[in-house]
C-alpha cells in the first residue's frame, strides 16, 4: 500500500486484464465490497451495494457512464454517484478514485462505506424507475491520474 501525493492511500488490486471492457467486477477489501467498472477509456470504482435494495451493482449493465442495478434497474451516474432515475431520493453511491500503475489497477482505500444492511429507500417511483430521464451534466469529474 502506498501513499499518494494528496495523502490518499492506494491499494493495488489486480491486473488490468481482470476487468473486461464494459463489465463490472466485485472487489472485496476487508469487510467492504467495491464494484470496479471498465468503461473502455477509464476504470471507475463505486460501492457495490445499490442504495435502493442492496443489489450487486457490479453485475449490472453499463449504459455509457451509468450503471443499471440488475435487481430493479436503478440507475447511477458513475462519475458523481448520483441516482439518475430518482435523484430526489438522495440515493448516492460513494465513488472511489482509481489509477493504473504498470498494468495493475489501484484503488483509493475506501473509508466509511456502509456495509451493513442499507435501509430500503422510499421513492415515489415504483421499483421499476422511469425509463427516460435526462442526464445531468457531469461536474468536472475526478479522473484517474496516471502516475
Amino acid at each position: 500500500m502506498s501513499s499518494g501525493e494528496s495523502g490518499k492511500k492506494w491499494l493495488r488490486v489486480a491486473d488490468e486484464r481482470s476487468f473486461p471492457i464494459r463489465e463490472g467486477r466485485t472487489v472485496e477489501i476487508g469487510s467492504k465490497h467495491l464494484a470496479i467498472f471498465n468503461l473502455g477509456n477509464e476504470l471507475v470504482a463505486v460501492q457495490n451495494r445499490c442504495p435502493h435494495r442492496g443489489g450487486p451493482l457490479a453485475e449490472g449493465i453499463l449504459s455509457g457512464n451509468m450503471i443499471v442495478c440488475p435487481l430493479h434497474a436503478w440507475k447511477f451516474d458513475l462519475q458523481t454517484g448520483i441516482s439518475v432515475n430518482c435523484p430526489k431520493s438522495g440515493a448516492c453511491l460513494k465513488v472511489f478514485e482509481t489509477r493504473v500503475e504498470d498494468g495493475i489497477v489501484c484503488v483509493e482505500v475506501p473509508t466509511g462505506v456502509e456495509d451493513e444492511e442499507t435501509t430500503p429507500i422510499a421513492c415515489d417511483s415504483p421499483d421499476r424507475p422511469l425509463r427516460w430521464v435526462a442526464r445531468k451534466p457531469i461536474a468536472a469529474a475526478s479522473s484517474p491520474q496516471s502516475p
Partner: protein
Amino acid sequence: MKVKDRLVVVGNGMAGTACIEQILKYSPRFEITVFGDETHVNYNRILLSSVLAGEKASDEIVLNSLDWYRQNDIRLRLGVRVVDVDAATKTVTGDDGSVTSFDKLLIATGSTPLIPPMEGSQKKGVYVFRTLDDTRALLDCSRNGARAVVIGGGLLGLEAARGLQVQGCDVTVVHLMDRLMERQLDLAGGSHLKAKIECLGVKVLLEKDTVAILGEEKATGVRFRDGSELDADFVVIAAGIRPNTELARKAGLAVNRGILVNDHMETSNAEIFAVGECVEHKGICYGLVAPLLEQGKVLAATITGNKGPTYEGSVPAAKLKIMGMDVFSAGDFREETFGNDVVRYEDPALGIYKKLTLRDNKLVGVILVGDAADSHRYMDWLQEKADLSEHRRQLLFPAPGADKGLDVAEMSDNKVICGCHGVSKSSIVRAIRDRGLSTLSQLKECTRASTGCGSCTELCQHLLKAVAPQFEEEEKKALCQCVPHSEQQLREMVRSQRLRSVQQVLDIYGNGVGCEHCKPALSYMMDMVWCGGHVEDRSARFVNDRVHANIQRDGTFSVVPRIRGGVTSPGELRRIADVAEKYKVKMVKITGSQRIDLLGVRKSDLPKIWADLGMPSGQAYSKGVRMVKTCVGTDFCRFGVQDSIATGVELERRFENLFTPHKFKMAVVGCPRNCAEATVKDIGLVGQEGSWQVVVGGAAGKRVRKADVLVTVESTEQALQSAALFFQYYRENANYLERSYDFVERLGIERVRRETIYAPLAVQQGLRDRLRKSKAGSRDAWLEGDEPRTPTQFVQIHPMENLQ
C-alpha cells in the same frame, strides 16, 4: 400522311431516357432510335451502390424494360457506340459501321470516370465504378478479406467503399483533400462523416496523393507522393467524372467543359440537342439526377415545338446513400463569403452536425450529417429562396407542436417529390385519390415514387397520411431511444450491413452507448440473425446470461439443472441432494414446471456446483427454451393415447440451449385431459387418438390465454416439425420481450399458419435450415464453468495486497 421526323438519341442512360419519356408525353411525331454503348436497358445508376452492397439485385434497378421500348416503337441499338456525327449530312456513324440519318439529334452521352494522372492506372486490377458492368466486375473480385483501395473520398468513392466492405473486403479510402466529400461538406461535417465511416470498419487516409499503381501486370498496391505505399489486391478509382463531349465537338457544337446549352436547352446547332451530365448550363455541369430530369422536361418542350419552359439552373444537392448514414448537402455553405450568417448545431456523441448558411434572411446552403430528416424542408427553402425572418428561431428544429403534415400541405402541387423518377406532388395526390391507395407499397407500385434512392419515402408517407384517410402506417415502433429504429428495420440493417456485434450496431445506428433495454435485445438479435455466428458480447447481456444462473433478491443465484421432460432417476436425485448439502443451498424447491431449483447459491460456487451435478443447464434464467413439461402418457397412464414423455424429451432436445425473444415454455400431453397444461404454453402438443394437435401462443402468466390450434397432424414427427416451424418463425419475427401469445395475437393465427405450415416449401426449408444452423452452433451454457470466457467471469476479486 406526314412522315415522322427521325430522332436519334445517343446515350441510353437516365437523362436521355427520361427526356424521351417527356417527349412521348407531348406527341408521337418522332420515329426514335436510341444508341447505348452499354448492353443493358436503362437502369437507375444511382442505385449501383445498393447493388454493390447487396441490397438490391441488378434486375431490381431497371427503369425501362425492353417492353417499354417496344410499346413506344423505339428502336434500341444496344452495345453500339456512336463514333462520329456529321452535322452537314445529318448522320451518325456507329462503331459497327452503321450510318443512321436523323432530323433531330439528342446527345445524352453522360460522362466517364476521371482518371487522375498516375503511373500504372492501366494495370489489371484497377477498376472504376460507373456502370452495371463495373459493378459486376467489382462484385467478382470482392472476395472475403481482399484488400481494396478506393481512390477518392467523394460520394461515389464512399459508396463504393461501403459496398466493398459489406462484401467482406478490407477497404481503405484514399483521399487527396483534407476532408471527405469536400465539395459537399465543411471541415466539421467531414470529420463527423469520417468518424462514422471508420466506425463501419472502412479505413480513411486523408491528404494522400496517389502517384502510382504498383505491381507488374496486376495492381498490388499504390504509392503516394510522400513515398509511402499501401498494399492492395485491387484498386478502385472514383476521383470524379468528365463530361463526354467528343461527339459534340465532331458535330461542331460550342463546347466548354460540357456541351453549352441555353435556358431552352438548345445548343449552338438548331437541330442538335443535348441533355444530362454532358451539358454545361451557365457554367455548371451537373452530376446529380434531379437537375438532369428538370433539363429533360424543358428539352422535351423545346424539341417537340412547344418551346416555352426554361431551365434556370438547379441548386446543387447531394445525399450519401449508405444505409443508416445520413449525409445531405446543398447550396453554398462557405462561411468566408461576406454577408453570410451561419447557424450551427453539433452533438458529437450522437454524431449529428447541422449547418445552415443564410444571406439576407434566405437560406443559401445546408449541411446535414447524422440526421437528414429535414432535408426536404431545407431544399424547398433553398429553391424558393424563401424569406426566413419569421423562422429564425426555428431554423434547426421545427416549432414545438408543429403539425407534421404541414410540410406537405405547404408544398406546391408541381413540386417534385421523387427526384429519381420525377414524380410530382400532384401526381401522387391524384394517384392516391383516383385509385384509392392506402399503403406505401401500393403507391410505389402505382407511381414508382420512392422506389429509387428511397430518400422521399417519408414524404410519400406524409402525403398518404394527409390524403388517404384509411392510410395504414406500417408498424414502426422504435426499439429504444438509444437506437431509434424498429426491430424489423434493425434486423434488416444487421443482415444487409453484415453487422456482427452489439457495439457495432450501437456505434453505427445508435448513440454508441446503449442501455439495459436495447443491449439485451440487440444481443438476442445478433445471435438469431447470424444463427450463433455473431460476435458475442457478454457486457451487453443481462447478468443471468453472463453467469448462467438466475439472480435473486439478495444477490445470490438459483441453479436449475436440465431434467428433460421432467424425467429423472434416483441416482440423479441423490446427486442433486448431495450438491445441495455440500454447498449449503438455502432452499430446494420443486417448481411449477417440474423443475428442481437450488436457491441461494453464491456466484463463485456456480462452476463447482455445475461440475458436481454433471447435468446440463436448464436455462431457467434465460430468455430461452425452458424445460418441456410432460404427463405420464402411454407408458403408464390408463388414459394415455400418445407417448407424451418420449415426444416431450425429443422436443426438448431439438430446441434446448437456444435463445428466444422471451422465455419459451412447452408441454406435451398424452391425451386431451391435458394434465401438463399444454394448452396454456407457448407450444403445446396435445395427444389425441391417432393424431397430435399442435397448439401455439398459450399463456398462464400475467394473463391467461388458451393456445390457438396451429395444425393437427397424424405422426409424431409431423407434430415436431410443425412445432419447429412455429418456433423458428417466432424467433425470427417477434420483437424482443414479446411472448408468443402477444406475437400470435398481433399477427393473427391465420397469418402465422400461412407463413409457417402452409408456407411455400422453400420458405419452410429456410426456417428449418436456420434452426438447424443455430442449433448446431449452440451448446450447454454450463460448459463455461470449465472454460470461462474471461478469467474473472465467476470470481470475486481479492486485492493482491492487504489492507493495513
